């Protein structure tokens, strides 16, 4: 057989390893190191100091921002999951021909290939004080005054998140659902299960891995976001990503690094927990 599988393997994987070493591992190490440095407005001072972490953990704002980050993640997760699961379920179990399934699935994925920023700003003519939504509501007589909370609010942030990321739920859930043997559904029906019972007792448990993969995507995307929150809240709300990007904008690299390290740890722990429920390698 192959003389030295290790050597061939290493050779072939070396470009990948080099890219990850230079653009992932080194940067993370550097962020870790820099998080213990201090800074002036224009330069970084490489001297060990706990100052950044002291400031970070000493500020009540940090805690509220982390809380806010989790709030966004959880609400967005709940919504994207409900919508994503429903859509995937519809496509996988209610659409009968494969041609239609593929066509409708593609229809769902097309926006995913277009610019996130454009998709985000597309909401502005919709939600503003004089936007389409408010004009419509007023002309229908639902409200007298334009609703302020449609734009520049947590509502707007979460709406944009759901708009951007529901696809990340639809795709993996749809994939796992399509792999469910249709005869399992028939077997359940044979056993007298109602549609709802089938959903709860058969489809949901068998879709777990897809849900987990979707969850990993949505949660990490939301937790790492900084631009959607800025755009859609009119800079009024913050999550950890914004904390970091604000620091970066103001050249507070050490402080940004400290926040980044805490964020990274949070994300990795969250993912590690989620990965306990699914073996990604098997699910591919």
């Amino acid at each position, binding site marked *: 057989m192959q003389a030295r599988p290790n050597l061939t393997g290493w050779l072939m994987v070396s470009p990948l390893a080099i890219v990850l070493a230079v653009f992932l591992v080194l940067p993370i190490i550097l962020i870790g190191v820099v998080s213990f440095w201090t800074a002036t407005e224009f330069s970084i001072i490489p001297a060990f100091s706990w100052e950044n972490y002291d400031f970070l953990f000493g500020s009540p704002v940090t805690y509220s921002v982390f809380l806010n980050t989790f709030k966004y993640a959880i609400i967005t997760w709940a919504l994207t999951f409900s919508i994503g699961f429903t859509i995937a379920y519809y496509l996988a179990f209610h659409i009968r021909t494969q041609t239609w399934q593929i066509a409708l699935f593609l229809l769902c994925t097309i926006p995913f290939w277009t610019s996130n920023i454009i998709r985000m700003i597309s909401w502005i003519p919709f939600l503003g004080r004089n936007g389409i939504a408010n004009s419509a509501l007023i002309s229908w007589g639902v409200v007298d005054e334009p609703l302020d909370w449609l734009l520049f609010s947590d509502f707007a942030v979460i709406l944009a998140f759901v*708009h951007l990321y529901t696809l990340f739920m639809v795709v993996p859930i749809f994939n796992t659902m399509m792999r469910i043997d249709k005869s399992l559904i028939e077997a359940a029906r044979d056993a007298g299960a109602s549609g709802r019972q089938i959903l709860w007792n058969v489809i949901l448990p068998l879709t777990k891995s897809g849900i987990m993969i979707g969850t990993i995507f949505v949660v990490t995307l939301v937790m790492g976001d900084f631009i959607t929150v800025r755009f859609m809240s009119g800079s009024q709300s913050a999550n950890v990503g914004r904390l970091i990007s604000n620091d970066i904008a103001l050249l507070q690299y050490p402080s940004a690094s400290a926040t980044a390290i805490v964020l990274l740890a949070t994300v990795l722990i969250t993912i590690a927990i989620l990965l306990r429920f699914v073996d990604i390698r098997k699910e591919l």
Partner: protein
Amino acid sequence: MEPRPKSFYVLTAFFALFMLFLYGPTITIGILSFQGEGGGLTFPMRGVSTYWFRDLFQQQAVGDIWGSFSRSIVLGLMVMVTTVTVSVMGGLAFRTRFKGSGILFYLIITALVIPSILISLGVGLLFSQTGLTVHWATSGFGAQLTWTLPFGLLIMFAVFNRFDKSYEEAARDLGASPWQTLRHVVLPIIAPALIGVALFGFTLSYDEFARTLLTAGSYNTLPLEIYGMTTNVTSPVLYALGTLTTLFSLAIIGVFLTIALIGNRRRARAGSDAGKGVL
């Protein structure tokens, strides 16, 4: 046909609403980009015109849309080629279960889940601390690879998980060298998946914002330019640009799908009985 359960209609309505939600805003700006010359960013439309599209092709007060557009294309192609090559090599390597594959796998997952801004920050720091100049084609390129490679690799893992090893054994049995096996058997069989990886590589790069933010250097890529425009442009020209990039993205998908379809059809035609008078 079989009768439909009631839930089907409820879910169809839900799906339709979801489509409206998904496409509504894009369509709205699509419409607004045809705003009349005197119109603004919101309704009502003041006439209908292609003014803003024409405006887009003229020089803007600030910035360089077409320069950034061409940079984004070049970068997208660089990332695409690299992603396909490195993913295939990585995918092949991971089948041999070399030592260290476990750690590397977790690195790939980390690259996938790490907040983009950390890559931007880290790569920016790395370059500044080592005295290198950030540039979209070096640091920007590398930072984007940390996002496209995990996708490419996950696709390759999925492909190779399902790849029947007996194809390779058969090739070896028939005297093919490892390289010939790859060239004449493995690559052609996984070609459709490679088109998918290429599509991912290109569009992820073409649309990437966060990872390029601090790593692009002096020259903007298109998403950075668009971002800049959202803070610098106050006319529907922004929507015209949005509409055009969306159409461009769609055209890219179209191109890839067509390549895949043509490939399929050519094969099918080669094998069909049409016009051969067989049987």
